[in-house]
């Protein structure tokens, strides 16, 4: 069993309630932080911990916090990003549903560190029942003196408000989220100014992911240095992975980032192997927008070394032969699945979610969807593959926000690694309507030339 810092208590009966959470040692972090540490030393501990943002980009959390502007007389805000809409990702939901007080505790400590008296949780609108769970936890924390006015007699005031979104993946992008929090369409803002300088209502704002803010609790309890000893290199601490697709045990797992991809995928402690006795064909290890990898590049790097479940190892090889940790949405495809169809559903998703502000993203996502639909239906031409490649290249890097890149990468990686499957959909169009391409050579041992 690996180290569990977040989900250790997830199965304790009644842990959703304040009483049980408190009895199990909850809110000790708030007591320690507010009574014995100042805001600066909390930021220092988070810096020392090496914690990287868990929302997808992996930016160091302590560093992000230290950027917040502190103009005299202007309120600052912490906003918790609970929009969680990246296909394959459902870890924040799990954390909020089963351990609401862990998030609230993390939010209180982080609000104190940043000087936020009004903190907002922006949660995707579809998680409607989780709003009730969070509001109940907030009420309980308040009734016990951990929220509200003069918390623990320290003079610190803090309220946490839960705001529902209304169905828009783009509102997970931090500036779109801020626009949405202001009651507007979720159109990302042009940066700079960065939210740390001008965020919600033009006030300095920090936006962090649910898991990032929950991880602040163990960091404060154990100290940043101890936290940093868990994991490897710049992948410190533990990471929540949500695993789905054709595996025996889909679900949310907390991993110590030293385990191999093979162990995560095949051991009974985690995914439990491929479902129905099938073989592994491909995997998207970090949510729909990260590059898909064929089986042989997933378990080993192009150099033939074991691939591990951490930021560095998953991206080993760059886009040519690697992928990314992203948001931790681990999507597994068995030998019967069609990569073209899977890619088509993602293209449709990004077209649907593009906010429409930039032409490359607005037009490009729609065009890619149409081409992939055509290919999937066996009506494509060989030139469509090159056209797709060309379109994704023209979106990437040419847009206001990274949704453009997120739409381009899955298409690029699918063509890069599965080009022959795309071609087969064209050359064997009729057959492609009755069966899938299969495992082909995608699990073959990689031949590494010895120098």
């Amino acid at each position, binding site marked *: 069993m690996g180290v569990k810092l977040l989900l250790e208590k997830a199965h304790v009966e009644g842990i959703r309630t304040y009483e049980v959470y408190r009895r199990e040692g909850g809110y000790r972090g708030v007591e320690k932080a507010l009574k014995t540490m100042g805001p600066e030393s909390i930021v220092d501990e988070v810096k020392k911990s090496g914690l990287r943002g868990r929302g997808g980009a992996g930016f160091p959390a302590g560093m992000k916090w230290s950027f917040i502007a502190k103009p005299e007389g202007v309120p600052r805000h912490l906003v918790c990003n609970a929009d969680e809409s990246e296909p*394959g*990702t459902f870890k924040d*939901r799990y954390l909020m549903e089963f351990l609401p007080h862990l998030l609230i505790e993390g939010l209180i400590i982080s609000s104190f560190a940043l000087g936020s008296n009004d903190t907002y949780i922006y949660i995707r609108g579809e998680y409607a*029942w989780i709003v009730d769970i969070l509001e109940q936890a907030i009420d309980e924390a308040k009734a016990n003196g951990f929220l509200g006015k003069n918390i623990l007699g320290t003079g610190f005031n803090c309220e946490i408000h839960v705001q529902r979104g209304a169905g828009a993946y783009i509102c997970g992008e931090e500036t779109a989220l801020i626009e949405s929090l202001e*009651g507007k*369409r979720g159109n990302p803002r042009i940066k700079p100014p960065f939210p740390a300088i001008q965020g919600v209502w033009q006030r300095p704002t920090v936006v962090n992911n649910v898991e990032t803010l929950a991880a602040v609790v163990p960091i404060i309890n154990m100290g940043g240095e101890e936290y940093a000893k868990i994991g490897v290199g710049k992948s410190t601490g533990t990471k929540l992975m949500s695993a789905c697709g054709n595996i025996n045990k*889909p679900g949310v797992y907390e991993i110590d980032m030293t385990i191999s991809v093979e162990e995560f995928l095949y051991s009974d402690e985690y995914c439990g192997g491929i479902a129905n006795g099938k073989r592994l064909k491909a995997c998207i290890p970090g949510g729909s927008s990260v590059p898909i990898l064929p089986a042989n590049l997933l378990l080993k790097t192009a150099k033939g070394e074991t691939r591990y479940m951490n930021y560095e190892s998953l991206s080993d090889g760059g886009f040519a032969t690697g992928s990314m940790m992203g948001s931790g949405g681990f999507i597994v495809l068995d030998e019967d699945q069609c990569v073209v169809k899977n890619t088509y559903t993602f293209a449709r998703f990004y077209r649907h979610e593009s906010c429409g502000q930039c032409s490359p993203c607005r037009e490009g996502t729609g065009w890619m969807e149409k081409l992939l639909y055509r290919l999937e239906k066996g009506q494509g031409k060989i030139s469509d593959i090159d056209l797709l490649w060309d379109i994704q290249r023209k979106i990437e890097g040419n847009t206001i926000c990274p949704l453009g890149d997120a739409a381009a990468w899955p298409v690029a990686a699918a063509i890069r690694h599965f080009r022959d499957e795309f071609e087969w959909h064209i050359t064997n169009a009729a057959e492609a309507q009755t069966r899938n391409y299969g495992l082909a050579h995608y699990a073959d041992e990689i031949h590494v030339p010895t120098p």
Partner: protein
Amino acid sequence: MIKFSETQLTEFNRLVARYPEGKQKSALLPVLHLAQDSFGGWLSSDTMDYVAELLNIKPIEVYEVATFYSMYNLKPVGKYMFEVCQTGPCMLRGSDDIIAYIGETLGIKPGETTADGLFTLKTVECLGACGYAPMMQLGKYYREHLTKEKVDSIIAECRNIAATNN
């Protein structure tokens, strides 16, 4: 006449009070949810104008938002809306078959409502339940690990509730 009841107004005031003075527009998304739930499951232009008036903003500011977000319905929907996820992870676990089965059983295509006004079938994109696929949203809650049998019993359950409420 579109008008919130006393209890709905109390909720409205609670929502607005969460934002700083003068930033009441920030409450627009939650207030539109409240309005949709209160006035028949969709947002008519009368409803949107009423929300604009309550928040002291221009109607166009409400229309902009209502048309941007996928959870707001701009036309009437059935009493029970089956919002079935069709994105990759759900597709890998057979969501296409579930969507087709619901369509056949209810005699409607995605986007349509049954003649009796009871059911709407809608395909949606990832709802954050990929590990429990195939799945759908029904009202406030998710129904997960869907099978044909499960779909049958959900339909029966909805028909029962509708019959006892009539």
